[in-house]
């Protein structure tokens, strides 16, 4: 599903260059549930953004579902994001003036799904994450946990094969975080590939595979303990 070959990312920090990601190889198969951990500034988000086609690598090759992405035009990359990838952010990034329903509608709008097809799809997704009754609420009227679930609904309404979550529980309390994690795990059980950046070792431990980044290098790539045998 995902194949990185010597992918590298450098930034210019003022006058001096800074390598956010050393040449990195990574392979993720369809259906995996992967945690990316590591200290702040270790390149976790950079890696996630590269995989999510939000950013372009400075070197190396990235194949998404067998398709090389380095030479794709901006337009084609946007189309891939629309079709393949759902994003969940730490800060939710919901549009404050839009209702939960309308926030979930955004990807469908961008993909040009006809209006009459949207309503059943949005309602189904909201029902699945248990937010049907707050569909007309704005983000300001919802709790953090509810907001993150709306964001997840938005991420999955297009039925992406890949879900990328950047610290999805970072802004949530314990209970809300647990609900979000359960949601992600459920999605993964249903076949969605989930990549999650997290600081939370407990959360990482629940993932079936975790990689650890330090200073832009993958220093550890280990399957987590298997819950079924624990």
């Amino acid at each position, binding site marked *: 599903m995902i194949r990185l070959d010597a992918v590298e990312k450098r930034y210019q920090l003022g006058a001096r260059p800074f390598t956010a990601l050393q040449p990195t190889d990574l392979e993720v198969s369809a259906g995996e549930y992967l945690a990316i951990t590591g200290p702040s500034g270790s390149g976790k988000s950079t890696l996630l953004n590269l995989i999510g086609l*939000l950013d372009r690598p400075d070197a190396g090759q990235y194949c998404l579902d067998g398709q090389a992405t380095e030479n794709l035009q901006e337009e084609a990359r946007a189309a891939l994001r629309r079709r393949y990838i759902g994003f969940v952010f730490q800060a939710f990034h919901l549009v404050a003036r839009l209702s939960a329903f309308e926030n979930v509608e955004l990807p469908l709008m961008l993909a040009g799904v006809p209006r009459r097809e949207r309503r059943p799809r949005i309602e189904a997704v909201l029902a699945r994450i248990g937010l049907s009754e707050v569909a007309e609420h704005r983000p300001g009227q919802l709790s953090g946990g509810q907001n993150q679930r709306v964001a997840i609904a938005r991420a999955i309404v297009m039925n992406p094969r890949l879900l990328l979550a950047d610290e999805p529980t970072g802004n949530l309390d314990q209970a809300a975080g647990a609900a979000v994690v359960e949601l992600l795990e459920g999605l993964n059980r249903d076949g969605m590939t989930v990549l999650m950046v997290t600081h939370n070792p407990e959360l990482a431990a629940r993932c079936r595979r975790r990689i650890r980044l330090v200073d832009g290098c993958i220093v550890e790539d280990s399957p987590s303990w298997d819950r079924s045998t624990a």
Partner: protein
Amino acid sequence: MGPVDRLSFNAQLLKRHRVRALLLVLTIAIGVASVVMLTAVGEGARRYVVREFSALGSELLIILPGRIETSGGAPPLYGTTPRDLTLEDAQALSLLSGVVRVAPVLAGTARVSRGARARDVVIIGSTPALFPVRDLRLAQGRGLPAAAANRAQPVCVLGDTLARALFDGASPMYQWVRIGDRRFRVIGVLQTAGEHLGMDLRDMAVIPARSAEQLFDTQSLFRILVQLEGPAQQAAVEARVRALIRERHDGEDDVTLISQDALLATFDRILRMLTLILGAIAAISLVVAGVLIMNLSLISVAQRRAEIGLLKALGASARQVRRLFLDEALLLAALGAGAGLLLGEAAVAVALRLLPQFPFAAPLWADLAAVAVALLCGALFAWWPASQAARLDPVRALRGLA
């Protein structure tokens, strides 16, 4: 993202920033309204002139003494004074076929007095034909008597302003007034509406042409007004008039003919141009509104960086983002243009009510052009901010950075 989606998306955005949007809509509305109003004034002036000329009677030929022409050679040294047009010329003209009426006009200024009151006004010497030819209506009394066509008679018709000034509300009918050194009896007063282009007939006195000849001691006519039978043979009659004058003036082609059509066409052209210029000046305010649109769009892009980043993460292409921001500006411009049209037309309606005799009317092309310029300004000035939004790097934009 279809147009309906973009519209509803941006409508929600404007609803959210109501005050900001309203102010911008107002700015554009004022620009559009000023185009509508100023062109309404220009077009009103044009219609006014056309109407006034039509009121002269549709087929009018004006004969002026002297010839206006460009000549290639050097001007003659002497003997260039044109032959006078005289009452005899006018009488001869009235016999031509195709000519309905001829009104000679002899003009001069003189003091008109009654008792202690006196006023220096323009005195018109003419014949009874002047009244139908110029479509003059009388408030009291009658026009010049038929006998005054070719004879001096001590009678006069006063403009209403003049009558009021001299008689102060009392009836002037059959009273004597002094014009210059002669006495005339008032036999009529013109209606207030007797206001026509070129001359303010309200402050004039009309006396028989022969009397005017004596009063001013001249035989030279100011002009001759010729009413023609119909437009069909206008050219033929003009040629006959020219031939007759040449014959009477020793073979000299020394008059200028102005047909009403030619005059009307000239005024029409000038006033259309004036309307266009007024509209263009008003359109400058739309350009100012455009700059404000640019400013607002820049603010909007800066404030919504995270949202732009999100949209890109959700798969919006650069083109879609640009369209979204352009549409925001276009929506504002369209709302402003609509409001401006209403505002401008309302102002025109009010002006019509206040000044009913002046036919204010914004021409359709001005309405359309104002709306088009507003939309064009919106698109043009929002292009740069929208392109900035489209170029934003999604990763940085999500963090609210440029």
